[in-house]
């Protein structure tokens, strides 16, 4: 029996490979210097979905992502690896959402997609490292959550069995479907793009992307509907805008400080008491330690 799987995937700045120029002089993040990538653990999540698709005939995988227009790349990357469909949730009204407002929007988009058996998210996104969206979506949908998953052992007869990797051990748990799981980086890496699928889906586009094409662009979606990446705005999902964006986010950023030292000059220190005392004070004051 096939499963209807949704994979939650986010486009994130590649914070793991920040060069020393990733911070601007004013102490803010130089987003332009950071590549936008498929959040690494969301690829682990996608791989689990693809394995289930190989195993259970008739399984379909839908990528759901919330972000700016260019996040459609994430859906294409998913299609290139074996996903069947994608939804891009994009609207100005989502901007500035914290994890709770994000979860609210995502859970309502999932409600609109019918007969979902399994929702697979990454454990955490590397831009915030919060690991909150998966469990918060599960709560909003009233579904059980299995976090820190390393392997989906089976998903048969409406019953899900998952191996979880905890700080101090492993656990095998079972729960009814539908359910939400979040996948760890210790799970198998995602397979590479499939050349045939790249050929098939390289012209997959959202409606906005198609509108922005030059005049000689030929819209292929009429005879190849699979090339249409669905784009949803606030109006397409049943939400109350007071729970979205900055105003719908309980958490606010009060202050941001840069802790990368600009144009690093090495400071030389001796082992004298005063100099080491000063160093420790400095590290505490700028929140590097303590």
């Amino acid at each position: 029996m096939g499963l209807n799987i949704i994979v939650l995937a986010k486009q994130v700045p590649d914070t793991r490979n920040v060069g020393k120029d990733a911070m601007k002089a004013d102490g803010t993040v130089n987003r332009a210097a950071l590549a936008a990538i498929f959040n690494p653990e969301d690829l682990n999540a996608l791989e689990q979905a693809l394995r289930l698709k190989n195993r259970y005939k008739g399984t379909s995988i839908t990528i759901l992502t919330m972000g700016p227009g260019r996040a459609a790349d994430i859906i294409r990357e998913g299609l290139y690896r074996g996903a069947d469909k994608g939804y891009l949730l994009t609207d100005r009204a989502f901007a500035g959402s914290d994890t709770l407002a994000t979860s609210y929007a995502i859970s309502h988009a999932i409600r609109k997609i019918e007969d979902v058996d399994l929702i697979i998210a990454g454990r955490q996104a590397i831009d915030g490292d919060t690991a909150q969206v998966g469990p918060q979506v599960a709560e909003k949908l009233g579904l059980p959550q299995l976090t820190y998953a390393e392997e989906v052992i089976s998903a048969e007869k409406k019953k899900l069995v998952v191996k979880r990797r905890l700080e101090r051990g492993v656990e095998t748990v079972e729960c009814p479907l539908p359910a939400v799981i979040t996948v760890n980086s210790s799970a198998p890496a995602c397979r590479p793009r499939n050349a045939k699928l790249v050929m098939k889906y390289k012209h997959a586009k959202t409606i906005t992307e198609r509108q922005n094409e030059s005049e000689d662009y030929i819209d292929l979606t009429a005879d190849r509907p699979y090339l249409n990446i669905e784009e949803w705005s606030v109006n397409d999902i049943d939400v109350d805008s007071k729970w979205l964006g900055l105003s719908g986010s309980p958490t606010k950023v009060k202050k941001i400080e840069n802790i990368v030292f600009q144009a690093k000059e090495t400071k030389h220190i001796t082992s004298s008491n005063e100099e080491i005392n000063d160093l420790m004070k400095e590290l505490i004051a700028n929140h590097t330690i303590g």
Partner: protein
Amino acid sequence: MNNVFVICETEEGKVADISLELMTKGRSLANDLKCKLEAVVLGHNLKGLENELYPYGADEVYIGDDKRLDPYTTLPHTAVIVELFKETKPQIALLGASTFGRDLGPRISSALQSGLTADCTALEIGDHFVKKENKEYKDLLYQIRPAFGGNIVATIINPDHRPQMATVREGVMKMEVFDKSYEGKLNTLDIDKYLKPEDMVVKVIERHMEKSKVNIKNSSIIVAGGYGMGSKENFDILYELADSIGAEVGASRAAVDAGYADHERQIGQTGVTVRPKLYIACGISGQIQHTAGMEESAMVIAVNNDPGAPINKIADYVITGEVMEVIPKMVKYYKQNTK
């Protein structure tokens, strides 16, 4: 009402260190706010655990002792705590940034529509002024945490929603007995009142716990020792420094080969790659195979008695001196400068 609340976890039948660290922090926040400190522990066979919490300044301890709460699964724990919070209305709630807290915290915050800030490295009380509305918020919880892969530090606040929730990693806050003879009050929770059959749908089939494993990869601060540490015994001072500043201990291959540290701590080309916000290299020369595994650290401090050691080229701070003189001083002055 309006108190500071710590959601405790247990480990081998005792309150876990992370929870006691949060109690210590919670006590000082409660003192700043002139309110009470409350704690909740859920599980099975918890008799007497309240006595582990009183010395940390717990005014009220809630214990929910029931077979259905052990082993931990998300839904029943959420159900009990969400209801308990509706009854007790805390202004602040703290949890460990452990697999427990990072599973439970977001679920609770979603149910209560309250903000949650993960992995805080500091928690302070402060005010906030919104110019646009000319509105002053008094005594908010400043939730300070690294973001963007540790490249920035953000201060997060939850002005309008309660509780203000935060998770903190083990080892980040200090654990200190507040008063050995402090006496709080025990409240035993009637679990039947809180649980519904549908909370029990997740079943743990098998569980295999191991002794805590080293996790240098995810540590935001690493104290690494090399061959220049001189002996396995001398490595103890690195553990002491790491313990006090909330770091993990790493090692160079030469140190591992010499038996100063276990292989799982090796950093470099044939070990693990790390990108902490702070890397303290002690007695490590900085050969390319080592630096390949740590050069993306946001900040590097090198302690070496050779002013020409290659590691110094990639270091932000170079301390030229003997490891066994410098590192004990770092421990000492860290402790002196933090309460």
